[in-house]
């Protein structure tokens, strides 16, 4: 069951980030924000490891 939640989280975060990226204004900051977004996605993909480590 927890795997289903994990997959859902990944799906939602990628979908919302893709939508947000479209709304970003054209500026030099845009690339940095995109980079931070991809770090967030990586963190969500890695999130099950956190649960394993805490046990």
């Amino acid at each position, binding site marked *: 069951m927890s795997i289903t939640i994990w997959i859902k989280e990944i799906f939602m975060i990628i979908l919302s980030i*893709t*939508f947000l990226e479209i709304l970003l204004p054209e500026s030099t900051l845009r690339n940095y924000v995109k980079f931070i977004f991809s770090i967030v996605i990586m963190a969500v993909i890695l999130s099950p490891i956190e649960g394993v480590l805490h046990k």
Partner: protein
Amino acid sequence: MKEILKEQFNHVIDQEQTKSLSEYASELTGGISEYFTLEEILNAALEGNNIFENKAMIASLKDLFFYELESALCIAAEILAICIIIGLLKNLSGSFETKGISNIAGFVCMISVVGITMIHFNDVYHLTLNAMKTMSYTMEILLPILIGILIAMGQVTSGTIMSPLILSAVTAFHHIIKNIILPTVFFSAIFTLLNCITEKDYVNHMAKMIRKAALYGTGLIVTLMSGIISIQGLITKTSDGLIMNTAKYSIDAFIPIVGSFTAETIDLFLTCMGSIKSIVGLFGILLIMTLIMIPVLKTLMIAVIYKATACLIEPVASKKVAEGISDIGTVLITLTAILFFSSLLFILFITSVMKIGGNL
């Protein structure tokens, strides 16, 4: 001889159970499995007829094929229409004030493509799950009958060892496929579709890795289980053959006058039981083959149509969409491969039980 065989057949086989199984299967296969009932196979075996020589069966198969082709073409048309709109929006973006609006419109179109694809994938997935369930149900009903016949034929060691082994293998395999392998393929499909919405590749490799893991996992389990069952079958067959031959020889040699008649009667009885076992086994194999026919046909048809759609939309839509649609075709082929592997394993189980009985 024929009467003896028929009478024994009616005594040995639990008619009600096999009838309920046939009805359930015919509901699922749209009536194709009705062409292979136990009685018909028995009659064909007695008269020496060809069981596949049936014009109605070929006609219904043809109908099924064209029905699936038609429904798959509808999906292709939907996807093609939306992709043409996406292409149009891309070219129109110059005339909008800001680029964002056309981007968002494209995003919405992409989500609708993904939605259509996901709905059809869900249908196929549930079809596969149902086919898996019915196949293991078929095995759970037929194997006790087959093994009962096996024990009646004097193959006591094989019967007592194979029965729990095969039944537990079937149940375990069904659970592994249902709860681990098929959901994994489903997740792979989700990631593949998600990847064609995003501008950058976020989960492309994950989708591919999960899909391959599911396929290799199935291959590994099938190899392991079929290996265990066939090796066990070979060993128990040898020990049973020893017991059987000793018993027959001692009746023949040590009981005066009637001994040789008794031994021949035993031989006749064993041949009849062997034929019944072959008929039941054949019924099981044909049932499993008809059960996977509809899911495999439908899934492969949709997969081929997706691949063809990917070729068609490549000039119009972006590269990402074409790749995503093509990848979904690959995921569907993986689903078919898993279903095919499992039917192969089940057929192998039945044939290994059929083989133990000896000369038939």
